[in-house]
């Protein structure tokens, strides 16, 4: 009885205390908030440690709990990733083609050529050792055999065969490719022959003239602009062969066009009718100055004691 009374008294005291705490908290007494804040300050290092230690375990349980969802989410993300990659590649491709097209239009516009743009849809097989590409425009677009084909930088080749909606282009790098060339400025003429890569051979027709490294070559042009329109940039001289006893001077030329990156080309369907001269000679690359900063420091007199 005595124990029961004491227990009840204790219970009443504790209940009153609890109600007192609730009342204090509901009335916004700051002491309660401070107690809570203090306990959290003490507990937070333990919680941080627990979080660090238990992260792998949590991840494991999370993976187990969401096994199906995680798997489907991974698959969904993989599919999205593949789509985005594809879009990005297409975008990069489109950007590159746009850049090439812009350059081609600039080139053709300067010369006054009437052109038909076409996309490269196939690179020719190298089994026959021929350097060719296939474009997505043909006779329907007004393209005919033996028309000059331009890249963004200059000559790309010549139309070898044409079909209603496609055409086969013989690249200027093809070993059987021949084009009449003249050196910008000196107007010396010669014949340029492909070598199967980006370099070509130039054979000058006049033995009394000389050629220098760095000189630019342009197309000489054909009768009625067929197969070649005049004034198209071909390349520049990288080496000169001055061997004694040669009938004519020869030189090695590097084409402006990078044949391995052709995405868009333009077929010249009619020339201006007049020779553009040297107006299409590409500008020499400018050396970009590296900015330097000079700092002047005037030493202040140090006090001496």
């Amino acid at each position, binding site marked *: 009885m005595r124990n029961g009374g004491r227990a009840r008294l204790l219970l009443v005291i504790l209940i009153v205390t609890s109600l007192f705490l609730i009342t204090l908290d509901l009335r916004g007494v700051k002491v309660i908030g401070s107690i809570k804040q203090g306990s*959290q300050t003490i507990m937070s290092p333990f919680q941080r440690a627990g979080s660090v230690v238990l992260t792998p375990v949590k991840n494991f*349980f999370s993976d187990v709990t969401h096994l199906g969802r995680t798997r489907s989410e991974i698959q969904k993300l993989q599919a999205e990733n593949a789509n985005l990659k594809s879009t990005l590649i297409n975008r990069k491709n489109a950007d590159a083609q746009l850049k090439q097209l812009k350059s081609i239009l600039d080139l053709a516009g300067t010369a006054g050529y009437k052109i038909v743009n076409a996309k490269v849809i196939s690179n020719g097989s190298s089994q026959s050792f021929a350097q060719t590409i296939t474009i997505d425009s043909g006779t329907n677009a007004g393209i005919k055999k033996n028309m000059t084909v331009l890249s963004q930088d200059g000559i790309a080749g010549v139309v070898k065969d044409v079909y209603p909606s496609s055409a086969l282009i013989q690249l200027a790098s093809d070993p059987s490719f021949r084009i009449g060339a003249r050196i910008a400025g000196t107007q010396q003429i010669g014949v340029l022959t492909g070598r199967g890569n980006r370099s070509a051979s130039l054979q000058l027709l006049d033995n009394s003239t000389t050629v220098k490294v760095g000189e630019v070559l342009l197309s000489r042009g054909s009768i009625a602009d067929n197969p070649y329109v005049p004034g198209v940039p071909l390349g520049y001289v990288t080496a000169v062969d001055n061997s004694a006893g040669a009938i004519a001077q020869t030189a090695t030329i590097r084409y402006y066009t990078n044949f391995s990156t052709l995405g868009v080309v333009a077929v010249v369907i009619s020339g201006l009718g007049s020779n553009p001269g040297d107006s299409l000679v590409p500008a020499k690359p400018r050396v970009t100055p590296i900015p330097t900063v000079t700092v002047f420091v005037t030493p202040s007199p140090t006090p001496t004691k």
Partner: protein
Amino acid sequence: MLTRQISIAAPIFLLIYAIQEAVISQFRLPGGGFSILLIFTLTWAVLSETEVAAVIGFAAGFLMDLSQSAAGPFGQWTLIMLLAGYAISYIGYGDDNVRTNAIGIIFFVVIANLLVEITYVASGALLGVSSGSFIQVLITLFGMSMWALLVSPILLPIFSRLHALIIDSRSA
């Protein structure tokens, strides 16, 4: 006697509280999870006299109110746990069928766990604490009960040994 028993039990309760806050709270368990402190307190209450159960209920409730996850006013858990501790001890302590039977203790703890949570929700509603939709509350209550049913048999041997250890130290 009471003071000695409580003073020995206090560090254990603090340790359990720390485990609850630093470890158990790290896991976002489905169905609301469980509170190891709540289960521990209720188990302890079943095995203790009413006075001890009331005091440890008060202390455990106070610790639960200190938790950052406590949404209600400070003292709400204190009051509920105090009453729960006293009530569960009052019903269970004198009944040897409960105290000496592991299944009986687990049954008591799980039912008490559910009733405590219901009381918390109900009193919270009276005090203006939002607990979510009715369906959500039901799901959480069911989930927590299931967790208690799952966890209690695992923890009971540890808790009962700890309790016996303190009782023995009291007797010595």
